[in-house]
């Protein structure tokens, strides 16, 4: 399966919490490739793409963090008008919802990546591949 595994950390939504997290990862010599934070009242979920997942999980658990992993899809989008629309349109036609999507450009005017969560992981994968869109594997996304 061409899916990406993210680290998800539950944190109190208060000062200093994120620093505690990044300190822990730095200490474990884990490199952060991408990060996003979603908050709900007094808690936040920090989702991180790291180069070494298992050591990161272990280090965070040891420090008492509440952690989990999350499978998401990363689809390659040409960096040009209408390209993102092709992705969202294909998914919408099949009734697949995107949750917590975020995108970044990897090579200006050439290539971008859309990272997203969905309930229908394998269906979304099938639909996108049928459209001829490329899904990244964990190794590929880390190599960007």
């Amino acid at each position, binding site marked *: 399966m061409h899916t990406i595994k993210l680290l998800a950390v539950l944190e109190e939504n208060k000062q200093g919490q994120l620093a505690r997290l990044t300190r822990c990862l730095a200490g474990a010599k884990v490199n952060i490739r991408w990060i996003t934070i979603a908050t709900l*009242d*007094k808690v936040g979920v920090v989702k991180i793409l790291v180069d070494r997942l298992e050591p990161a999980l272990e280090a965070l658990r040891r420090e008492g963090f509440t952690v989990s992993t999350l499978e998401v899809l990363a689809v390659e989008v040409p960096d040009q008008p209408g390209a993102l629309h092709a992705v969202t349109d294909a998914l919408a036609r099949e009734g697949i919802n995107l949750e917590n999507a975020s995108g970044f450009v990897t090579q200006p005017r050439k290539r971008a990546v859309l990272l997203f969560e969905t309930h229908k992981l394998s269906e979304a994968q099938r639909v996108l591949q049928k459209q001829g869109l490329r899904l990244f594997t964990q190794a590929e996304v880390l190599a960007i």
Partner: protein
Amino acid sequence: MKTRYWDKAAECLRRRELEELQLERLRAVVRRVERHVPFYQRKLEAIGLRPEKIKSLQDVRHLPFTTNADLREAYPAGLLAVPLRKTLRLHTSSGTTGKPKAIFFSRRDLHHSADLIARCLVATGATEDDILQNMMTYGLFTGALVMHYGAEKIGCLVIPAGPGNSEKQLLLMQDFRSTMFHTTPSYALYFADFLEKKGIDPRRHLALRRGYIGAEPYTEQTRRKIEQAFGIEVYNSYGLSEMNGPGVAFECAARHGMHLWEDHFLMEIIDPATGEPVPDGQPGELVLTTLCREAMPLLRYRTRDITALIPEPCPCGRTHRRIQRITGRADDMLIVRGVNIYPQQIESVLMGLPELGRNYLIVLEGLDEMTVKVELSAAAFDGRVERLAELQQLVAERLRTELLTRPRVELCAPGSLPVSEGKAKRVLDKRTL
């Protein structure tokens, strides 16, 4: 399994004989306080009640109530029925506001309180082979010492560990192979978490078989959580310092309601607002009259504890009637937006959801705003913030159904709420009303 008794004659006394005994003892106690306790002399005189007027158990209703405030006013020794030199031990009850309440025990009272605990422990299956780790606070609080002497009476080895210091508790438990512990529900939950973090599996690494949990009201769901966490049977214990401490009522092996030792305490369940009795099985405030106490007899003491009578006979053969677990304190009742709420109602909703952790806090602030903060269970976190939002909605909805008012719900990270090792403080009232 064969039912074992400590004092079968007393525990299985036929109802009619038990009630005759109660009446005889009630009349004796009224005579004694009328003769020896000026406080009661005045109260009885004021209503013109002579001990001879007590002709049936129902006549207890003519007697005056004794309240919390009466005990504080009588502090230090105003309610003694014997000379001070006849008393052997002093306990005080946790005075959270103002003066404490002082409770004196004579030699006979100490003997009785230990004997009642012996009945309780044997009813749960405890024997002289058991080792009790007593994790209650030793000292002025009755919880630890009264249990201590009762357990010794049946021949248990008692480890007077006292509360807190989880590292040491674990060490004692491992080295001496404790088979039973006695603690509060909040410390039991805290200790379960501690063991989990330490990687200790109580089923494999410890010898625990039973837990005696009391001193704070708790729910059936909390009982199950503790039972599952330790792999033990948990027995509910009810008592209050004003009535000797633990051992007033206790569960037998059936673990359905607590037998209240009616040869020592005359119980009534009343409507806290009107003082009138409620029908059997209906919730109300427990009112107790001591029937055997020598140093400090009390008439119709308002416990402020809300319970209900279970009138049906128990399969264990004990004739002393059972009361349900305490569902609240008349004093703990919160009034939020005009609705009466007991914190235990909130607890029972929270403990019924496996996605939630064990720690919670009820915050009241502003103009009657209630927020329930509850920790998420670490195992239930799947990384999705949508899941958290759904869960928050679900908790709020369940609470609304139970309380008839919708509180704000805040999910918190595991371990982020303050933890207490003694009596848990679950309500923070910051209202500016």
